[in-house]
């Protein structure tokens, strides 16, 4: 009979990390996915772990710790996932943006994070191909890049050494509960897997899994398109993005850029990052389009338009491909890393939106601590699933 201590649903970067950390801690673990490893969001995203795109507080703290964990993992895991600490650069188009950025940096610096302001001239010393009329920016050395789907593969390979069983191409159809409401088994289209503990790492599909145990997980898919350049000269040497990225990520910041209709309507902000293979990934874009991951021409053109504004050198460089992914969005931009009181044995690690890559190691670690009844690295009260119940009561 198939029986495991824990069944992890979803073999994206969060599920792979959770499965790895649990396996390493000595649990018998099954990792179940309706497709292959990294066949969803984790192979349709960008490739960075950042702190500089996070709001000050637990967000930044966990991000920073996660990057430190990546550094260790890059040494420990036998599978190379193309990790490197390249740093990242925020660019501000106007003095007004620079002002907001300055305020933000001061707050982060006060919390002890190494971010510094650079002026327009220093920007060009760091990235000489940038447009010459930019006001300045923020430079962070800690920010790192890796190949997200290779991270997934690396976690799975390593976890297999500790006995992980991978059920790929198994679509979860139901979760059986005992009369007392606790988890009994995960039923896929091909097998019944017995367990007392289930971790829902299904990301944008977490809501569907939640429904199987009768809970409502308020995660919405938020689409993001990425353009891939040809292999070309090093037009940038690190992640570079416009400060407006923050403004497109968080709806609550009140600032409007002087941009075209296409850029505005599609919530486009310039981002570019080099890959190990010598191509560049360009973004970014956010929109709610359900589960649709088609490449939209208007968005492609908007991303290119915005990219040319900041990096005119791209004019004669070819875009060879595009892709779109859907990210698990939650209203308060903090992931759910939590148990579920109503369903004993059911846990959730989802809702990281664009931070899944950054947050995977720390999420896997804390989920393992949670399941083992150990104290978690951070106080994760704010990540509890029950926060949504409270808020809906308030409303």
């Amino acid at each position, binding site marked *: 009979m198939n029986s495991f201590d824990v069944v992890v649903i979803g073999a994206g970067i969060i599920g792979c990390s959770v499965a790895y950390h649990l396996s390493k801690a000595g649990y018998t673990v099954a990792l179940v996915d309706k497709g292959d490893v990294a066949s969803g969001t984790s192979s349709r995203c960008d490739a960075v772990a950042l702190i500089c795109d996070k709001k000050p507080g637990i967000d930044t703290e966990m991000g920073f710790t996660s990057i430190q964990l990546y550094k260790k993992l890059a040494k420990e895991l036998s599978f190379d996932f193309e990790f490197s600490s390249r740093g990242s650069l925020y660019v501000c188009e106007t003095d007004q943006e620079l002002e907001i950025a300055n305020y933000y940096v001061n707050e982060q610096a006060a919390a002890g994070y190494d971010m510094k302001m650079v002026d327009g001239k220093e920007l060009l010393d760091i990235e000489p191909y940038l447009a010459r009329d930019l006001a300045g920016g923020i430079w962070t050395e800690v920010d790192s890049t890796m190949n997200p789907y290779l991270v997934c593969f690396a976690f799975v390979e390593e976890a297999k050494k500790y006995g992980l069983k991978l059920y790929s191409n198994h679509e979860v159809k139901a979760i059986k509960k005992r009369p007392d409401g606790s988890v009994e088994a995960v039923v896929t289209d091909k097998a019944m897997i017995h367990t007392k503990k289930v971790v829902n790492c299904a990301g944008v599909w977490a809501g569907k899994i939640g429904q199987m145990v009768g809970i409502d997980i308020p995660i919405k898919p938020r689409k993001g398109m990425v353009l891939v350049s040809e*292999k070309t000269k090093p037009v940038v040497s690190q992640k570079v993005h416009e400060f407006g990225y923050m403004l497109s990520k968080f709806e609550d910041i009140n600032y409007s850029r002087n941009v075209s209709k296409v850029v505005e309507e599609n919530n486009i902000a310039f981002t570019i990052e080099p890959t190990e293979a*010598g191509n560049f990934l360009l973004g970014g874009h956010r929109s709610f389009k359900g589960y649709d991951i088609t490449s939209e021409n208007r968005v492609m053109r908007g991303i290119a338009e915005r990219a040319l504004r900041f990096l005119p050198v791209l004019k*004669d460089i*070819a875009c060879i491909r595009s892709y779109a992914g859907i990210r698990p969005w939650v209203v308060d931009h903090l992931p759910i890393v939590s148990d579920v009181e109503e369903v004993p044995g059911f846990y959730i690690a989802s809702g990281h939106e664009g931070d899944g890559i950054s947050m995977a190691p720390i999420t896997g670690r804390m989920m393992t601590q949670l399941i083992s009844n150990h104290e978690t690295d951070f106080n994760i009260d704010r990540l509890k699933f029950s926060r949504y119940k409270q808020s809906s009561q308030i409303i």
Partner: protein
Amino acid sequence: MTMRVEYHPVLGNLENQRRITIYFDDQAYQAYEGDTIASAMMAEGVKTLRYHEVSGKGRGVYCNIGHCFECRVRVNEENIVRACLTPVSEGMRIHSLS
């Protein structure tokens, strides 16, 4: 030596072709008006149009109809084009990629 098919038993002979000069990696070559970069270079016996960006190995015309992008070259400092789909013009400066 030219590789032109000047005489052809069915298609007839090539007559009154207008000759133009093009430059490939700064060397001058004769081409016929109506040539693509690929046919002009092949007529002159130049088979290698590009060097693979990682391995540095030579590449030339493979599909000749724009599908494989093996024959891409740089024209006039900026544009990367497929040699097989790009007509030559007088004084055109073509550069191999590497």
